[in-house]
């Protein structure tokens, strides 16, 4: 756009200045950056940097700085004095380094609020680079008005800005030097402003840094020593929170173990010498893991402790590939660390022999497999360093076996193991005084460090969640484990609700009522909603009618959430950070306060509601003639369940207009679906279960059943897809750089290799994965007349080969990458569920601006902001799905338990299908319960044929029986409680064709 205009200068223009560079600033003026291009070329970039004189020191009585406008000086004249070691007459202030933030955050937030703390900006920058959650906590600490925490912008202010890297100096040393500058600055600055400064004490757990500080005449102390010198109740309260011993950071044999410092890692990743990716621990085998790296079609395999090099599931790691001749296939054995490592001593770090043997055996096995089936071999590597830890608080059980008999009653501090709920995590070593009391509790544990010389990470106890298997503890631990924010909505958020509360109604249709501005009056349309039974948050409603020209008008009406939730207010920020409503079996954790979700926004029947409508003119064969978008007022005529709508549609006696419009919608939906299938849309499958709870009092569910799909489910689905696609096109056109879209990338073909091979060898079937259409067609052909469930099973397995769909800002990828593979649509977004998904709220705002109803909030014009918001939503979405699944699993477990009670062997017998074979067992899927389980053979009496995915098991009469992937078997399922961890475990034994008892 270009325009010629005369700018009206009415309001005051702020002062505009041109920065001048002093000659002496020149060495500070530029930072060098290396950056790798998409083609792998390494470019050097320069970034400019200015240094300033106008940044205040924060001391409340400073005469030099008090003229800087608009800031609150938080550092008091007298420092903290209640310390037995630091007894200067003016008290003291603390200056903290980055490692203290990274490792002692729980302690920092528990320090007395009167203790003044100076945080150099170097620390803030490093923390942001290393851990976003800790950066956020640090920011909260700084902004907390009850504390005296002051940021010293050391790199920004001229006196303390550091020149480039000195000779032989690594980044860490440079940052430490920058932090020490701060301690030199304050006494000098305050003496110039005629004040005596309190003592400045550097808090650091790095011995070298302390030595350097002492040499420069500064005071430095370790966290442990500092807390030890605090007085009275404060000391007692804080002692347990200090993380780790002192000075554990300098391992002796870094070089020998190929552990590189941060800088070498960064350079290595940039130059392509190392690969970077998130570490994925293997659920079945604790000695293996994989890392998916950008630009590699297959994940990089890590075998053994040395190769995994203390990575924890989710960490961002740097990996070095081994030479090709050392590449391996993933192990084909189940290795459960609870069993393999049960004898490990908490204090010692010598591994039990059994593990060493296992590791050795496994290596031999993999060598064999490598020869036999070369295509299973994966690029294999070793972790050379951790780029970013992704640690959080983990829900754990105390491992009873790690406590000695005496310790069971002792109240002294002792070291014990905590076993995380998640199988992908290692056991955590922690020190506590309360071990006996925590034995049958679920507890929350933070990992603090993992030293090079240790097999286990060290952590500390945060709090107890409650008794194992109590509903409250299970629910809370599930929410914590999947990081679901579940605290009640605060006052600031509730203040954003309409002040009329639940008596709010759509005002009368009058020009002076703003609600009616530019809104279409659709109250007379025969609109209805169709949802699952008991649905309270009704996002969507529909209508259809025949037009005089023979075409059909169809409308999708969505709750007008953005009318109530305004950008950037506390309610919006909370919804943005929640990202989605989370559905657990017995609880719903709302994204928006209940008043909106289940009432004011919900498109309930028989009342007027505000809506955002998509209205199409469709030809009789369901082709779009045109589409428009409008804000509207509707009055739903009925809220159907899927079943009720189906019944009404099928009842030939009914001839009323509402029923007819459901029939019309249905006939269109059938054509829309046919069109999508023809274009290559996939119909995938993941087991969806429904849990019947018999009453709210008891935790035991009555029963589990698979969800039924009706025609009306598909009716609603088709129209929601159509609305989402139409809206996606519109907002992409209006905001090509920042439109909120959703995409599903085509899976790499290699993802299907294993499934293709299994199908070929077991069933002689081929899976064509050349396109989504080819895949859909060949999935349709995967039919075994003897096994009706076979097709569903293959679909479930194929679904697991897919990538996850994700939200993205349209400017962040090229237009060719917008596509949604599963839906076979070239563009897609989410518009239809704004009550329970935050992305939809953003899409509503963009659509509203695209039709000139409201201006677009500036945050939705910023690529960076959109991407950041969508990263959060993507993460929340993924975790919410995992939480729902875990909740179903918990109830399936309870259902099983109640059904096993009273049976002779405390087990339920079910049909299952083999989905994987291991050298020492089988993985089976019980489709009726949506449950996956392992059957392990302890003895080596069977033959394993990994190439043909089968196991030959001896029968009691001396013969042998073959069991292969896809075979139908019968299993006994029981629940056993692990005596050590109190963890309830599903145990399966094979009953047919051969009993696995004794194998």
């Amino acid at each position, binding site marked *: *756009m270009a325009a010629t205009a005369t*700018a009206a200068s009415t309001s005051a223009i702020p002062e505009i200045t041109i920065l001048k560079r002093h000659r002496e600033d020149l060495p500070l003026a530029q930072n060098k950056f290396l950056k790798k291009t998409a083609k792998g070329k390494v470019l050097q970039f320069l970034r*400019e940097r200015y240094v300033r004189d106008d940044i205040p020191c924060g001391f409340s009585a400073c005469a030099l700085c008090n003229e800087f406008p608009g800031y609150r000086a938080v550092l008091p004249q007298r420092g903290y004095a209640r310390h037995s070691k630091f007894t200067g007459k003016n008290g003291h202030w603390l200056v903290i380094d980055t490692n203290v933030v990274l490792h002692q955050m729980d302690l920092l937030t528990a320090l007395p609020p009167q203790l003044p703390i100076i945080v150099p900006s170097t620390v803030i920058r490093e923390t942001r680079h290393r851990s976003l959650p800790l950066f956020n906590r640090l920011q909260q600490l700084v902004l907390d008005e009850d504390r005296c925490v002051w940021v010293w912008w050391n790199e920004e202010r001229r006196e303390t800005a550091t020149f480039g890297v000195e000779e032989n100096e690594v980044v860490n040393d440079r940052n430490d030097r920058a932090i020490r500058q701060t301690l030199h600055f304050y006494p000098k600055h305050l003496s110039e402003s005629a004040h005596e400064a309190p003592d400045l004490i550097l808090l650091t757990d790095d011995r070298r840094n302390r030595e350097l500080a002492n040499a420069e005449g500064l005071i430095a102390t370790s966290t442990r020593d500092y807390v030890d010198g605090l007085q009275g109740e404060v000391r007692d309260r804080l002692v347990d929170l200090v993380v780790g011993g002192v000075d554990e950071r300098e391992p002796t044999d870094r070089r020998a173990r190929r552990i590189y410092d941060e800088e070498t890692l960064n350079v290595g990743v940039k130059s392509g010498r190392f690969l970077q990716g998130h570490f994925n621990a293997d659920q079945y085998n604790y000695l293996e893991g994989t890392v998916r790296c950008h630009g590699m079609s297959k994940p990089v395999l890590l075998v053994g402790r040395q190769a995994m090099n203390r990575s924890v599931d989710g960490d961002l790691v740097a990996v070095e590939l081994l030479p090709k001749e050392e590449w391996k296939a993933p192990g084909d054995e189940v290795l459960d660390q609870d069993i393999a490592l049960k004898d490990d001593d908490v204090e010692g770090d010598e591994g039990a022999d059994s593990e060493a043997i296992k590791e050795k055996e496994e290596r031999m096995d993999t060598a064999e497999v490598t020869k036999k089936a070369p295509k299973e071999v994966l690029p294999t590597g070793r972790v050379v360093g951790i780029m970013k830890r992704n640690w959080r608080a983990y829900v754990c059980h105390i491992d009873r076996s790690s406590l000695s008999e005496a310790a069971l009653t002792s109240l002294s501090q002792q070291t014990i193991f905590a076993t995380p709920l998640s199988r992908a995590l290692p056991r955590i070593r922690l020190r506590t005084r309360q071990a006996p009391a925590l034995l049958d509790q679920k507890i929350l544990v933070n990992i603090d460090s993992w030293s090079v010389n240790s097999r286990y990470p060290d952590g500390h106890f945060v709090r107890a969640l409650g008794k194992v298997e109590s509903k409250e503890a299970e629910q809370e631990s599930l929410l914590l484990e999947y990081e679901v924010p579940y605290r009640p909505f605060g006052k600031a958020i509730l203040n954003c609700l309409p002040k009329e509360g639940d008596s709010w109604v759509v005002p009368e249709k009058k020009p002076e009522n703003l609600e009616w501005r530019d809104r279409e009056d659709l109250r007379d349309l025969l609109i209805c909603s169709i949802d699952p039974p008991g649905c309270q948050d009704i996002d969507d409603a529909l209508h259809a009618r025949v037009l005089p020209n023979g075409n059909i008008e169809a409308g999708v009406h969505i709750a007008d959430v953005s009318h109530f939730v305004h950008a950037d207010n506390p309610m919006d920020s909370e919804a943005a950070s929640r990202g989605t409503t989370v559905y657990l079996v017995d609880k719903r954790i709302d994204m928006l306060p209940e008043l909106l979700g289940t009432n004011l926004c919900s498109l309930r029947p028989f009342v007027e509601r505000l809506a955002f409508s998509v209205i199409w003119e469709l030809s009789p064969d369901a082709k779009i003639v045109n589409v428009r978008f409008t804000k509207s007022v509707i009055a739903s005529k009925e809220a159907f369940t899927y079943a009720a709508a189906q019944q009404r549609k099928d009842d030939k006696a009914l001839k009323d207009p509402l029923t007819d419009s459901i029939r019309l919608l249905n006939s269109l939906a059938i054509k829309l679906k046919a069109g999508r299938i023809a274009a290559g849309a996939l119909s995938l499958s993941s087991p969806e279960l429904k849990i019947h709870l018999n009453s709210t009092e008891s935790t035991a569910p009555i029963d589990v059943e698979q969800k039924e799909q009706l025609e009306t489910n598909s009716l609603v689905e088709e129209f929601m897809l159509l609305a989402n696609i139409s809206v996606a096109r519109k907002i992409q056109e209006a905001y090509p750089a920042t439109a909120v879209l959703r995409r599903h990338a085509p899976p790499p073909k290699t993802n299907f290799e294993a499934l293709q091979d299994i199908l070929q060898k077991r069933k002689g079937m081929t899976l064509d994965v050349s396109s989504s259409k080819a895949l859909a067609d060949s999935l349709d052909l995967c039919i075994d007349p003897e096994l009706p469930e076979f097709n569903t099973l293959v679909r479930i397995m194929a679904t697991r080969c897919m990538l996850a769909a994700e939200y993205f800002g349209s400017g962040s990828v090229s237009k060719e990458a917008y596509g949604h593979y599963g839906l076979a649509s070239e563009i897609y977004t989410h518009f239809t569920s704004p009550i329970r998904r935050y992305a939809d709220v953003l899409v509503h705002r963009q659509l509203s601006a695209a039709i000139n109803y409201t201006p677009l909030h500036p945050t939705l014009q910023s690529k960076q902001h959109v991407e950041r918001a969508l990263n959060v939503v993507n993460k929340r979405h993924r975790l919410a799905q995992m939480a729902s699944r875990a909740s179903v699993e918990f109830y399936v477990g309870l259902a099983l338990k109640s059904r096993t009670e009273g049976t002779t062997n405390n087990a339920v017998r079910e049909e299952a299908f083999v989905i994987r074979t291991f050298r020492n067992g089988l993985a089976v899927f019980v489709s009726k319960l949506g449950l996956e389980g392992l059957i392990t053979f302890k003895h080596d009496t069977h033959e394993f044929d990994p190439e043909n995915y089968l196991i030959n098991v001896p029968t009691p009469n001396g013969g042998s029986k073959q069991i292969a992937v896809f075979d139908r078997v019968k299993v006994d399922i029981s629940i056993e409680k692990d005596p050590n961890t109190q963890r309830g475990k599903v145990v399966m034994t094979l009953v047919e064709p051969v009993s696995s008892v004794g194998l």
Partner: protein
Amino acid sequence: MSRLEILNLAGLRHDNRRPYELRSLALSLSPSPTADGSAQVTQGLTTVQASVFGPREPRQRAAAAHDKASVVVEVGVVPWAQGQGGSRSRGDKRLLEIGAAIRQTFEPVILTHLYPRSEITVQVQVLAADGGILPTAINAVTLALIDAGISMLDYVTAVSVGLHLKQAMLDLSAPEESDLPTLVVAALPESGRVTLAQMETRLHVDRFEEMLRLGVAACSVLKEEMEAAVKQRTTRVVERMAISAKGAAKDD
């Protein structure tokens, strides 16, 4: 690596500037002896040199207008200029757009009717790129035209204005430019007239007006600097001429 923080807790940008602070500015006149007029402008790490040839006979007669001079703009980037400019050839679309924007900016400002049937060629060379290529180029062209003695209505000065959430900020560096909606404003500061307002994203009209006003104000600040540089040079030239005139008088 974590992404750029546009404004940190202290309200500072990634290079420690505040929102309304422009990058350091260096101006030099007549760096190229072969052109009729030339100038080099450095703003932060962006450096652009402009050379003016003419008014002279049009290279293609057909292009000549009988009542005024035609303005031709060519834009090039040296291969070692980093960042957004990258190594681009003369035919690159983005460079053609920059060339067109420069021509559009100056055509109504140069008193072209004073030079009928002639051509004024402006060559723009981007020597280093760290954001704001177009505004820096416009500033350099203004000085080069003045250096060449071509009559204009007023100085044309230009600046980029970005919007981060609700905060407008001036003179964006390359990393900021790639993250923020950006408006390039060129104005005649004397009259407040805007000759160019270019952007690639839709912005709400209220924000647009605010950014435009801010841009025009920044243009006046730039003009003062440029005027000072021109005056200083004129003084120097006059001094030198006076000295040589004295010398010449002695010889007589």
